[in-house]
Structure formats: structure tokens, C-alpha cells
């Protein structure tokens, strides 16, 4: 990679930032990691709590196969080692949102070992600047409940809906060196999780959050002491955290201070990180293997089933869009960055090919262009995302087919699309109802051309005198007179003849 390295300019020279992320991703599953309770977001407090989640006396955890399956599939999607033998450990500490008095996690034997993710640092040309970020491990663990401090003046309430929900903790290696890399890593990881379907990636609902480990050093020196900023919940905030925390550390070091290994919090309103607790206050978690659970042993048929169920992943899809469908690198990158976008595009593509009776590669460019410019432009104005699009892939394909077979012109298609957005009607219906059908009737067009030439004798004379640039003027006049409904190719042909006299 040739991109200029990210450096912080300090009084004593340049500093390099070293970043590692621990991402907590909620596993998409109907039930919790060790109980059958539901996991829907936003439910009434304590309405999704089983006896096990509430840690009633004598209750025992039993692993949820679906959660294990999703963790394994995620591991496979990042090319990681899947550990056929893994084990659950207890992390012991007291807190009101932790009913058991311990969290069941995997410290000693995680289910997924080392893997990697390739990130692109140039959106326009994804292959130009890439970097491979190592993944140390993925383990599964229980989420805690949450405390509500705003319900009563002197008391705190506990909501255990989240208690016991399955999380994957995805731990990167300290391989990132800039806020951009951290942001690209998190975005790419989220894209992969969504493709795999193992996490919905909704950071604003807490389904995905990152602990950001940051240290600084003089380029090439040993790693510095790191701090960990907890629970950062958007890509933008992760990038800001890296920036402000690295700068803070440089300031501390250059003032002769030392970085303390500690847990910090990011305050987006003030754009700063604050100390939460230092290493000295750290809990002794007394990890030990959970004696209620047997080691998890995965057999080959289970792994095979997991592998067979993996979808095409973003990198592979992007390359296929470029190579097989002939899309530009940029379009391919944008269309594959998110699983939902790619799914929408592929539905549009399949339907377009079907209604036009052509191969996907023949309709792909028009479909991509329409989606990324016309549809995205419209959605932008409406403040909606693709999932809320008022126009479906099938309706989009109908519109594209009308353009492809010459029924309407490109400019007319934009008008029709506007009407589709307003009314929800299909393109063929709009064209039919409003008589927008493009005409190739040479007689009608010739009559209009004759009129246009008669009305503009000056221009005609100039044209015939050699000013051929006026051809566009005559096309425009003709189209205008025909309210855009004339087939441009036919207009061109007939105009040339008429102008030649």
C-alpha cells in the first residue's frame, strides 16, 4: 500500500497510533445463549426473562445450537480457524444487572481462532489501497441486563431482557494505524456479519458495539501502554475515539507523563474520552471452567452444514460484479458494501433479465446506474433507506425494460420514475394512462420537423451554411414540440435528412 501513513504531529516529532478493536456483536437468534427466552429489541422491561436468565436457585444453562452455529459461520466468513473443542468459563463479579453473579464466557478455549479481514481504504477503487487486519479470536458469551436509573428518585431498577443474550466478542489484532483503518475495519466487519446473517449490525440498538484499544508510539518503536475505551456505538464515534484518545496520549507523553492502562469512556458531546477505572480498581474475575457445561465439541457434519450455508461474501461478490457483470469498480464496491443493497440489486437484476429476456450481464450496467443514481437520489431526498424504498425491484425492472425496448426515452424515464414515487403506480400503467409512450411514427415526426424548420428559417440557413453544431438545437426543438415522446434515434435520422434538404 502506498497511502501516506497517518501521523500525529507532536512537539517532539511524529507519533504513530496503534489500534485494536474488540467488537461485541449480538448473535441473531430467537433465543438466548443458554435459555429459551426471546431476544426482541425494545420489549417491555423484564418480559423476556426465563428462570435461567433470572438465575433462580437450581437453574442450569444449556447451550443454544443456533448461537453456536452463527459464531462458527462468522468464523468461517473471516477465514478463521474453527476450534472443534471449546469450553465455557465463568467470569465472576457482582453487579445488579448480572443475575448469576458471573458471566458465562470463553476465556481459555474460544470457539473461533485466528482469522483476518481485508479492508479497502479507497472507496473509488477498492483494490488500490487494501490492508489485511488480523483477528485474534471470536468467543461467545452472555450479555448482561441493564440498570434503569431514571424510574425512581432514590432507586435503580433492573431490566433483565438482555441478560443472557448471546454475544460474539470479535477481537482484532493491534493491526490498525489510523482512524480511517479503524472505521474501515468496523464497516467491513459489520458488512460481513450482515451478509452471514449472524448479527444485524444495528449499532444504534446496541446490537454491535466496540471497545477501542489505543496506544501511541514513535514510528517503529515498541508498543506503548494502551487504554481501552468501552462501548463505542458507531463507526464515526470509533474514528473520533481513536483521534482524540491518540492525541490525548501524545499530549500526556510529551508533557512528561505516563499513560495508565485503564478503561475509558467516549463522550461524543464533548468529543473527549474520560477515565472510568484504572487497572488498580480492576476486578479479579476469578475465571474458571463452568462446571454446569460440558466442553463444546463440534463434529465434521455440523461444520460442513455451517460452511454450506454461507452466502457469497462481499469481496467475492464485488469481484464478480466487476468481472462477470462488467460494472465499474466503484459501482461494484458500493453495491456490495451492504448485504441489503446487494440483495436489492440482485433482485432488480434478475427481474430485469427476466422481463427483457436477456442475460444479467447485458442489463447489469443500466440496472446499477439507475439504482445508484436515480433511486438513491430519490431516496436521499425522501430521507429513506433502501429497505424503505417506495419502489420495489420488480417495479424498477419494469421501468428499465421500457427504456431498453425504446418505449420511453431516458429523460422520459426520469419523469415516469418521479410519478412512480408519488403515486406508487407501475411504470407501464403511468406510460399508458398519460400517453407518454415514445413514438417512432415517421410521418408524425416528419410533420413536426417540417414545422420546426419553417419556424426557424435563420437557424436553418446557418446550418446549411456549415454551422452543424445547430443540429442539437433542432433536435431539442423537435423533442420539445413532441413533449419528449419521440424516439430520439428516429428524430436524429429524419432531421439529418430534412436538414440536408
Amino acid at each position, binding site marked *: 500500500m502506498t497511502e501516506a501513513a497517518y501521523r500525529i504531529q507532536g512537539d517532539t516529532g511524529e507519533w504513530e497510533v496503534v489500534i485494536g478493536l474488540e467488537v461485541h456483536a449480538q448473535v441473531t437468534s430467537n433465543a438466548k445463549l443458554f435459555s429459551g427466552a426471546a431476544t426482541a429489541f425494545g420489549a417491555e422491561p423484564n418480559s423476556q426473562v426465563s*428462570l435461567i436468565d*433470572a*438465575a*433462580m*436457585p*437450581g*437453574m*442450569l*444453562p*444449556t*447451550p443454544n445450537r443456533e448461537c453456536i452455529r452463527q459464531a462458527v459461520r462468522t468464523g468461517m466468513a473471516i477465514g478463521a480457524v474453527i476450534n472443534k473443542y471449546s469450553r465455557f468459563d*465463568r467470569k*465472576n463479579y*457482582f*453487579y*445488579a444487572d448480572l*443475575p*448469576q*453473579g*458471573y458471566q458465562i464466557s470463553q476465556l481459555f478455549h474460544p470457539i473461533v481462532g485466528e482469522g483476518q479481514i481485508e479492508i479497502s481504504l479507497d472507496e473509488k477503487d477498492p483494490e488500490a489501497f487494501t490492508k489485511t487486519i488480523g483477528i485474534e479470536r471470536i468467543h461467545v458469551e452472555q450479555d448482561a441486563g441493564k440498570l434503569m436509573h431514571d424510574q425512581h428518585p432514590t432507586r*435503580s431498577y*433492573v431490566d433483565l431482557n438482555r441478560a443472557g443474550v448471546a454475544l460474539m466478542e470479535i477481537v482484532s489484532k493491534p493491526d490498525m494505524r489510523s482512524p480511517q483503518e479503524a472505521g474501515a475495519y468496523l464497516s467491513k466487519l459489520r458488512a460481513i456479519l450482515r451478509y452471514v446473517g449472524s448479527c444485524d449490525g444495528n449499532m444504534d440498538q446496541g446490537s454491535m458495539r466496540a471497545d477501542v484499544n489505543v496506544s501511541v508510539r514513535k514510528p517503529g518503536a515498541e508498543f506503548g501502554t494502551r487504554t481501552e475505551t468501552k462501548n463505542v456505538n458507531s463507526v464515526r464515534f470509533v474514528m473520533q475515539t481513536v483521534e482524540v484518545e491518540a492525541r490525548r496520549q501524545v499530549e500526556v507523553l510529551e508533557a512528561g507523563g505516563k499513560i495508565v492502562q485503564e478503561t475509558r469512556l467516549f463522550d461524543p458531546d464533548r468529543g473527549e474520552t474520560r477515565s472510568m477505572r484504572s487497572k488498580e480498581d480492576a476486578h*479479579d474475575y*476469578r*475465571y*474458571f471452567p463452568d*462446571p*454446569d*457445561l*460440558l466442553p463444546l465439541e463440534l463434529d465434521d457434519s455440523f461444520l460442513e452444514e455451517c460452511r454450506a450455508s454461507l452466502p457469497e461474501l462481499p469481496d467475492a461478490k464485488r469481484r464478480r460484479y466487476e468481472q462477470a457483470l462488467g460494472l465499474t469498480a466503484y459501482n461494484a464496491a458500493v453495491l456490495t458494501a451492504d448485504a441489503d443493497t446487494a440483495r436489492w440489486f440482485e433482485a432488480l437484476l434478475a427481474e430485469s433479465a427476466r422481463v427483457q429476456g436477456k442475460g444479467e450481464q447485458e442489463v447489469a450496467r443500466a440496472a446499477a446506474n439507475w439504482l445508484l443514481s436515480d433511486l438513491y437520489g430519490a431516496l436521499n431526498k425522501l430521507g429513506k433507506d433502501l429497505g424503505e424504498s417506495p419502489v420495489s425491484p420488480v417495479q424498477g425492472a419494469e421501468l428499465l425494460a421500457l427504456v431498453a425496448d425504446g418505449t420511453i426515452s431516458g429523460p422520459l424515464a426520469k419523469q415516469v420514475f418521479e410519478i412512480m414515487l408519488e403515486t406508487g403506480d407501475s411504470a407501464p400503467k403511468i406510460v399508458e394512462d398519460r400517453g407518454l409512450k415514445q413514438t417512432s411514427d415517421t410521418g408524425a415526426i416528419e410533420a413536426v420537423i417540417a414545422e420546426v424548420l419553417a419556424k426557424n428559417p435563420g437557424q436553418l440557413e446557418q446550418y446549411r451554411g456549415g454551422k452543424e453544431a445547430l443540429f442539437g438545437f433542432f433536435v431539442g426543438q423537435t423533442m420539445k414540440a413532441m413533449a419528449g415522446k419521440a424516439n430520439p434515434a428516429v428524430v436524429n435520422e429524419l432531421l439529418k435528412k430534412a436538414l440536408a434538404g
Partner: protein
Amino acid sequence: MTDVTDLGIAQLRDGIRAGTFSAREVADAFIVKVSKAKALNAFIVETPDHAIAAAKDADAARAAGETLKPLAGVPIGMKDLFATKGVQTTAASHMLEGFKPVYESTVSQRLWDAGAGMLGKLNLDQFAMGSSNETSYFGNVISPWRRGGGDNAPLAPGGSSGGSSAAIAARLVPGATGTDTGGSIRQPAAFVGISGIKPTYGRCSRWGVVAFASSLDQAGPMARSVQDCAILLENMAGFDPKDSTSLELAVPKWEAGLSSSLRGKKIGIPKEYRVDGMPAEIEALWQQGIDWVKDAGAEVVEVSLPHTKYALPAYYIIAPAEASSNLARYDGVRYGLRELADGQNLQEMYASTRAAGFGDEVKRRILIGTYVLSAGFYDAYYTQAQKVRTLIARDFDNAWMECDLLLTPTAPSAAFALGEKSADPLAMYLNDVFTVPSSLAGLPAMSVPGGLDKAGLPLGLQIIGKPLDEQGVLNAGLAIEERAGFTARPESWW
């Protein structure tokens, strides 16, 4: 007319089936016995209605000509470590005083499904931690036995299943559930002259049993005969998908498989169990047991279990380590006791709740467990203890190459007086010296009465079997039972 409360599980079952007596008569007779035995303090809660309901069902089924369930109308006692729906479940701790679960433990549910009724919830050492039943928040259980010669010192019924052992010996119940973590079924059975079996770890579901040490806890039956133990165990054991450590195996027909012939069996005598200072009477009983099994056709061989002496220290690291974590849930937040003075914060609520809710022995074990798991000590204690546990299991594996079963004393002494050892936890822990190794290895093991010591107190013999060989253990127990002819019973003073 026979007093039905002198009868065991099999006789009651058969008598109810045959119509010799009604289930209701049986229930009523035991209910009276229970109500008159308050001096033993064996029960924390009495549940006559539960026993009567089961009896009515049994009688109605019989009247309708239906096939009776395996335990139809047989009333039993339930150790108060098993969660019972709507009935106070305390683990003998102030922490859970008044706690009524909305769920039923798998083991108790199986017994009710088999037609049994519950006479009450039996007292125990608090959270099953103890060997004398002196750690219960609800007071000591008093053994129905007394030493001869006018010595009326109240004796320990053993522990932790001391309410179960006392109630069975006193004929308040014909049988009861127990749980065994390091000997809590076998040692109390030995102390009161009854039988009790801890099956292979994983045979009985732990779901709904208040946890002490998850990797060791195992439910089992206690009764006055080997056959009764077999019947109860058949109706307690079985795979439970709600317990990950439950064994996915069919439950054998242990009662039908009973045979007191030990021909072709080799019985090992582990030499390391001859501990220093073992009373001569225990030594003599052991020899008597050897003679009995030989008489039943077995070949007796000496075997070595070289790591035996490390078993007790390893147990008193592993069990408290697990307990320290298992008992973290008793925090005053969701159920049970909450001590929260005005102005106290969360940490203070934890501290005052747990200080008030747990007894001294429970606190001692939580502290030990917390210590051995803490950073810097984990490897020296917990990891080391797990290695010892592996070696002990290997000792048994090696022994099984030379024999089919092992015969040992159950406990190093007869029942001691209440208060005699309660000031010295280490002396108390030594009571488990013969029972703990098989617990660490997860093996089936049973105690059967062998005879009385000079003071007239019962002594027990322990049989340890290979994994899943409950049948072999029960059969050897039966061979001893037939030869011991143990009929002694405590005279009622309560």
C-alpha cells in the same frame, strides 16, 4: 395388625397394589408419625396435603381398576435442596427462607409422576455444606439413635442429608431423596443404619436442585433396604435435556436386576483406606464385610489407589471454588433475603444481605473458594486440584483392571455427638475421607449398614462401582444386607 410405618418402599407399594391397605391409610399413618417427631427437627416444612393427594390418586386409580404407577401412593421425604413448586425451598439457609419456587426440580417431578407423595421438606446442612447437620439455619437435626448405657447426648445424624437419614431411621418416612457432593448421602446413611446410593454423576438431573458444587452434586435415594434404594433410584434417574451434564442413557431396571450372588465378581480392597487412627471396630467391620462378600461368591483382591491421600485436600479446593461462584446469585436483588438499610448502596446491600443470609460454614467455603480462584493463587490451588482429580480418576481406572467393585468403610467413625466436632472444621472434613474419592471420580457408590459398634451405634460399609454400574453396586449391597441381617432400630424417645 402391622404398623405400616415399619414397612419399606417395596412393601408399601405392593401392599397398596394388593389392597392390603389403602394408600390413604399409609399417608395418614406417616403424617401422624411426622407430626409427633418434632424433637428430631428432621423437617423444615411438613406437606401432609401433598402426601394425601398422591394417596387419593392411588386409591382412585386402584378403585377404577387402572394399572398403578410404580410408586403409587408411596409417601416419601424430600431433601430441602430440591425445588418444589409452591412449597418453601430453603437449602436450610436464612437466605432462602420463605422462597417458594414456581418450578419443580426434575428429580422430584419424576417421583411425583411415578405416583409418590411428599410428607415434607427435610432439613439438611445449609446449602448441603456439612457432615453433621449442624449448619442448618433451621436448627440441628437430632439423630434418633442414642449411645447405650444411659448416655443421652444428642448425636449427629450425619450430613448433609441428615434430615433424610434421621427421618428414615425413625420411621417417619419409608425413603427420601438425598444429594451427595462428597458423601452427603453415604455418611448420614451409615450414621443411622440405613442404605443410600449416590449414582454415577449425570444419572440424576441437577435441574432444580440448589447447587453446591456442580461438578460433584448428584442426587440419590436413601431408604432402609437395598431394594428400596433401587426402586427409588429407578424413579429419580434419567436423561434431562435441561441439564447439560445429564447422561443420555436409558434407566436400567435395577430392581429387577437385583441378585445377591457375587460369583465371578472380584472385589478390591484399597490398601490406602487403612488410615491411621481408624477405630478397631471399623477395621473389624471392614474385615466382616470382606468375609460376607467372599461368602457371596466374590474373589477379594487387594488394590492400590495411590492418590487417595490427596483426595480430601483437592475436594476442599474444587467444591468451595464452585460453591463460591454458584452462591453468587444470592445477592438480595431478585428473590430471597434482602438486607438494605436506608441510604445503603448496592455494594452495601450485597454485604449486609450475604452477611445475614449465610451461615458460618457457608461463608467459610465461599471465602476458601474465592481465595483459591483468585489471581496468583489459581494455578497453585485450583489447577493443581484438578490435576489431582484426574489422577484420582486414573487410580480407579487402574483398579478396574483388577476388580469389579471396591469395598471400604463408609466413614472413619460412628456418629459423634452434636457439638463434638463443630468447632474444628478440619476434623469435620475428615469424615468424608472415604466418600470423597469416588465423588471426585463421579462413580456410583453406596453405603449399607454392617452392624453396631460397642456403644450400640450403626456402622456402614461402602461399595464403589465402575461408571454406570449401579447394578453391581446394588447387588453387592444386597449380598452384604442379607448377611448382615441388620435389624437394629433406635428406640423411640421423641
